[in-house]
């Protein structure tokens, strides 16, 4: 997920070429306070006129407690991007209020309520504590994400490269998302020149259960894909497992062994997920 500042035409018009799974056109923190109107209008014109190819387009609006949140919704909701991302979500109640406002705008424009997702950003201690309710409060909540910089600021601690201060938050947010079967996206890695650091942090994100990671520079995309995409060995092994599974299923056997290791249902499910990521199909 690539962050693009909402008032930067050069970056907005090229957003689709980097192969990011999704783009976050940002009206919030990346836009100066006196350019909020300009960014809103620019994003409105570009969403409808620029080809973003296979990347999903999300828009991060300003919080409703600011003078800009409502105007952002009025401009963006009618365009129905893939998702609207709401910053600094702290309670399920405020997210439900946001969704009410969105659906009111959708009603006015004769738009269905099931197309655009809502993504909640967890960036405060209160949000972390309430994340289970936030993630499950409405069917339209399609993903939750963690904002590391804001969270450490809210906790009044310094953000360290090892992520120690937000480790609990990361895992709590992942668990809440998994419980509700929605996506969960890790925070950005800020040092764009530190490729090894990015790789290490992304490997950790993957290990603890995040389904993706946000990036602030297109140069970071390939490394994240390399980490998240299954390796050739993983794909080969998954292919063998699923193939064996179908063979054994025909014979009515549920649990079997490959190379002396027991293969049961959860391992098969995981292997099927790997093949899905890799776009490989196994004939039954």
């Amino acid at each position: 997920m690539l962050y693009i500042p909402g008032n930067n035409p050069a970056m907005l018009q090229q957003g689709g070429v980097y192969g990011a799974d999704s783009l976050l056109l940002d009206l919030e923190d990346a836009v100066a306070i006196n350019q909020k109107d300009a960014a809103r209008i620019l994003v409105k014109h570009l969403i409808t006129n620029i080809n973003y190819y296979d990347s999903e387009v999300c828009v991060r609006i300003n919080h409703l407690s600011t003078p800009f949140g409502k105007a952002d919704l009025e401009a963006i909701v009618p365009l129905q991007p893939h998702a609207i991302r709401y910053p600094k979500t702290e309670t399920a109640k405020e997210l439900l209020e946001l969704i009410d406002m969105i659906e009111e705008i959708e009603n006015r424009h004769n738009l269905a309520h099931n197309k655009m997702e809502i993504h909640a950003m967890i960036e405060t201690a209160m949000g972390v504590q309430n994340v289970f309710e936030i993630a499950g409060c409405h069917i339209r909540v399609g993903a939750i994400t963690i904002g590391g910089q804001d969270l450490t600021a809210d906790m009044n601690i310094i953000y360290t490269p090892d992520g120690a201060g937000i480790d609990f938050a990361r895992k709590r947010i992942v668990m809440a998302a998994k419980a509700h079967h929605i996506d969960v996206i890790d925070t950005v890695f800020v040092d764009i020149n530190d490729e090894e650091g990015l790789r290490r942090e992304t490997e950790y994100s993957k290990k603890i259960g995040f389904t993706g990671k946000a990036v602030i520079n297109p140069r970071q995309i390939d490394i994240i894909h390399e980490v998240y995409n299954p390796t050739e060995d993983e794909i080969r092994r998954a292919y063998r497992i699923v193939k064996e599974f179908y063979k054994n299923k025909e014979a009515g056997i549920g649990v079997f062994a490959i190379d002396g290791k027991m293969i049961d249902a959860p391992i098969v499910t995981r292997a099927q997920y790997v093949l899905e990521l890799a776009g490989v199909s196994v004939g039954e």
Partner: protein
Amino acid sequence: MKNSLGKEIPEYIEGIGKLEPFQGAWTKLSKGWMDEATIPAPNKAKMAHQSKICESLRVAIEKSNPKDGMTITFHHHLRNGDIILAQSMMILHEMGIKDITLAASSLNDCHDSILPLLKDKTITGIWASGIRGELGKAISRGVLEKPVIIHSHGGRVRAIHTGRIRPDLTIIAASAADIEGNATGSHGKSAFGSIGYAVIDARYSKQVIVVTDNLVPYPCIPLSITQNFVDYVVVVDSIGDASKIATGTTRITNSPIDLKIAKIAADVIEHSGLFKNGFSFQVGAGGASLAVAKFVREKMKKHEIKGSFMLGGITSYCVDMLNEGLFETLFDVQSFDAAVSNSLLNDRRHIEIPAALYANPYNCGCMTNKLDIVVLGALEIDTDFNVNVITGSDGNIRGASGGHSDTASGAELTVVVCPSFRSRIPIIKDKVHTIVTPGETVHVLVTERGVCVNPKFKHLEENLKNCGFKVMDILDLKKELDGITGVAKEIEFEDKIVGLVEYRDGTIIDVIKQLKV
């Protein structure tokens, strides 16, 4: 008359002579010899221990006995730091010499100051591989009566052999030289690396002056320029602005678009069928081209592939790859940064080569003929894959032919990399303003929005498609770009021809017309 690309070429131009239309990239070469006669090199004699040292550049130029209508040549290895060309031309101007043909291997922004000499007819003819800055703009507006001639690096050698360029005086700036004129660019405070383009001038010019700011005890080695061709030696305080001659190491671009293009280009190279042990490789020093080297380097390490040689313009990036054992040899005709000089001087695998060995089409085989893969830039490309690297989107002469057409014609795989639009101007045209490199020598176009394979090379398209590449028809990509940028209004030109673009074999591939202003 029309050439084989449909361009109208005049048969004769006063002051230049008969022109031959381009007939195809290899039509003339396939004969196996050159029809044009080569002119003899001058024969001179010097007495033993006769001094060549002159007290100033002016004295040396006066001794060379300059005349109206003369041809003077320079090299451009000092890039934008060169001050010797402008100084020499001012001296000739002060001497009242008129009607000079200036044949520099390339002209840069640092030569803007000679513009008044074009206006007052001190200089009436220009040969160069590239022209930039104010000179390019003025020439595009018709400041000269005679068209300038743009040649390739290899074509320049041929033009000197055949006497199309007949140097009366050659002035060679060198960062180190001795009293006999042995000279090099590989050491000294103004070191600039290879001096490969000047070698042919030294051989053929009637008078040769070496100018240095670093006179070393005899002998000056390496013998890049040798004393047997040098008439005079001049010591000056400075041959140029060191900060503009060559600075530090060339950095890889940070532009995300250029990096994206470079990554796709490296993937194309990996799956081209040519990425294997012993392959040879050339990349430009600019933007996306150099970045391709970064990704190719990673791929070579990952797949444990070792290449044979890198060719052409050498950057510190190439030196790093040599030192990592990724390539066996660097053949250096032009060095792009200060870090290269040291390697050129000290590493026997890093070899200085003259332009003739690099790219002259008329000999028993130049090194571009041995190239497997070259990565080149473009100002524009058309739907027949013809490439323009000389005139900008506003119609001004502002680029350089350089080794573009030489390497494209030699390489097994020519990859052109460029952003799909720059400052709203789309890169793909129905017809480019000026053809420098014919489409038949270009295999692939890589932009951030798609890869297009020249339909002449079906097997390559198949290879890439089989590896999962999304190959686009260049017409479709053009349509998409026009949709993004809007169709640009055509630039308008007068009828007067201000430039001729020579293909490497000496035929005329295109003409440049005067801008309507």
